[in-house]
């Protein structure tokens, strides 16, 4: 009965009795957001109390180690202030041990809204290989219009005792990546998640064009080229990325314009560089817009 009812609700049109009481269109509450996932939060089963205590104690050891390191650094007070031009500092290195645990893979199939598949694994060359199939087919339920994406993202950067923090990349002005793609273009996502719900979905994007072929490619992208968007919409009020507030890093690939099918992006490292010859702060000119037009 329940499943029938649910099916009826989804179809939304064939149950005259139900339709009078329950409105079947999706409700968009745009005033404020309850949680960061905007309604896509999956409730995972909680482990038992005993398990949680054991996990907590195990984590405590690691967290103490981290904390000790932080305190030591604080007392040493020896930060690197001068970054030599032309030198790449690697941030995400796929040669490091258990690097795959630092990344999360998501696709549209996670919430039953699409059929894309993706995995992140180590390739034969010892690099990270993000591959799978993107598929723009979906159930025509009248709500979802377009699907077909796969995405990888690093986990939130944190300090000891699971306190959230941000990367500070203010000394650099270039993103350097050694990748081997398949001719598709990928989206580079720099999340700058803020405190308020309006800023939870702030992501700075730029395109990573891949050459394809068996040769590695080093892509250098200035941070000034990144533009702000939120929930996939490019914002009217733009600005250069605040490099001291980067929280996540990731890549996306989509099945847009009939590009359904396999994809593969091999990533050796992602690094940062300071290039003194690049003086641009923000690549997009900003005009004064008429009143009450921005963000409407």
């Amino acid at each position, binding site marked *: *009965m329940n499943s*029938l*009812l649910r*099916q*009826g609700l989804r*179809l939304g*049109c*064939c*149950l*005259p009795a139900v339709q009078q009481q329950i409105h079947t269109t999706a409700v968009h509450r745009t005033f404020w957001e309850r949680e960061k996932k905007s309604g896509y939060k999956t409730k995972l089963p909680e482990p038992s109390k005993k398990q949680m205590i054991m996990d907590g104690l195990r984590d405590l050891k690691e967290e103490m180690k981290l904390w000790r390191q932080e305190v030591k650094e604080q007392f040493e007070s020896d930060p690197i202030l001068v970054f030599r031009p032309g030198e790449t500092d690697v941030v995400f290195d796929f040669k490091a041990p258990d690097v795959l645990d630092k990344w999360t893979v998501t696709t549209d199939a996670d919430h039953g809204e699409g059929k894309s598949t993706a995995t992140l694994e180590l390739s*034969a*060359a*010892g690099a990270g290989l993000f591959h799978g199939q993107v598929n723009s087919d979906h159930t025509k339920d009248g709500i979802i219009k*377009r699907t077909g994406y796969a995405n990888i993202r690093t986990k939130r950067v944190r300090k000891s005792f699971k306190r959230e923090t941000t990367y500070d990349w203010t000394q650099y002005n270039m993103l350097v990546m050694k990748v081997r793609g*398949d*001719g*598709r*273009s990928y989206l580079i996502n720099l999340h700058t998640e803020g405190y308020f719900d309006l800023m939870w979905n702030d992501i700075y994007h730029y*395109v990573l*064009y891949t*050459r*394809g*072929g*068996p*040769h*590695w*490619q080093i892509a250098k992208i200035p941070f000034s080229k990144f533009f702000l968007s939120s929930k996939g919409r*490019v914002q*009217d009020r733009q600005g250069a990325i605040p490099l001291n507030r980067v929280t996540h890093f990731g890549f996306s690939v989509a099945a*847009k*314009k*009939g*590009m359904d*099918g*396999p*994809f593969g992006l091999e990533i050796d490292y992602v690094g940062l560089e300071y290039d003194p010859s690049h003086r641009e702060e923000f690549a*997009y000119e900003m005009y004064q817009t008429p009143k*009450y*037009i921005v963000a*409407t």
Partner: protein
Amino acid sequence: MLRRAQCLLRLHGNGGHSLVSRFRNYATDEGNPKQNPNPNPRAQKPGTKNLPALRNPFAAAQDRTKNSYLTMVEIFQERDVHRRNHVEFIYAALKNMADFGVERDLEVYKALINVMPKGKFIPTNMFQAEFMHYPKQQQCIIDLLEQMEDCGVMPDHEMEAMLLNVFGRQGHPLRKYWRMMYWMPKFKNLSPWPLPDPVPDDTLEMAKLALERMCTVDLRSKITVFETSELKDAIDDTWIVSGMSPEQEKLLREHSRQKALYIEGPFHIWLRNRRINYFTLRADADSEFLSELDERQLDEDDVSHIEVPFFGRAPPRRHNQLGKLRSVHQQDDGTIMAICATGTSTKDSLLSWIRLLEANGNPSIGEVPVLFRFTSEVPAKAEEIEGGASVPATSDNSSQDEHISSRQK
């Protein structure tokens, strides 16, 4: 409970019926139940036939060309002065664009915007402007603009004038239009490997484009198109597009005769929405050479061992200062000797490729053992490459090594 089940059954029944009736000729005035599901199912009585309120002329059209599409839009415009249901008409038109092959045509989008009445939807006071005057109509045109954006069609200034005539300066479609005109030109020609739009249909042309793109890594690379008919005993009669640079030829000449070369593939490269399979001729990385290079991990921040170039001491000389340079093809995971794409992607055509390379300035390839190493996730594809030879049952993601010597030919 029973009634609901009946409702569901009826719905599915309608679906089945419409599937059958889908192939009817809709040029007559009969309704199309599939394309126009009645929005109000309560009005349906179980015994009666489906009588839709609207007719979708796009699903009914017989010749699906741009001309017939525009004619239908014209007919709708001239049908009566009120143009009732124009929002529904535009949505139906947008949905059927792909069937007519006009989804990337700016003229068609303009024709659809032209269906909207001019001047009627312009807000006349502040409150109308603030509360999205005629929301359905505005949303319809926003959806149209979004479809243009998805298909990569950039609007022009005539469209701005049209939208201004329909919705006025405060209209939401105008805001969408201005955003598109700000961002789309910025990203339109951003790719460092520009491609024709649309890409050619011919596979050979596509293979050439793909090889050219992959060979941009070495500017001296040359793309050659071979025909297998040049060879005497080639089974497949097809083309081979091969990419190789003088540097790769030199590497191949200097390659040890004892070490094997591998033909690997098929890998794929995307050019817009087309996928091209390619194969590589690869050798294992020359670890001896790579270790000779001056890529020692020196900690330049280490100040405990500064060599002072005074007092008779020779200045610190870097290892391999005038020595060999590493070529771009000598990667850590192997040396790339050549790339190719063939018309059939079969083993025979690849064998022909090796023989053609040997005949065209690379005689050393005849003295080196060449191994085929195919990986394909699709067993059928592996069989195709093998050319009818037996394929191991576990061909999913497994690689097959097969030794051939080009001297045995």
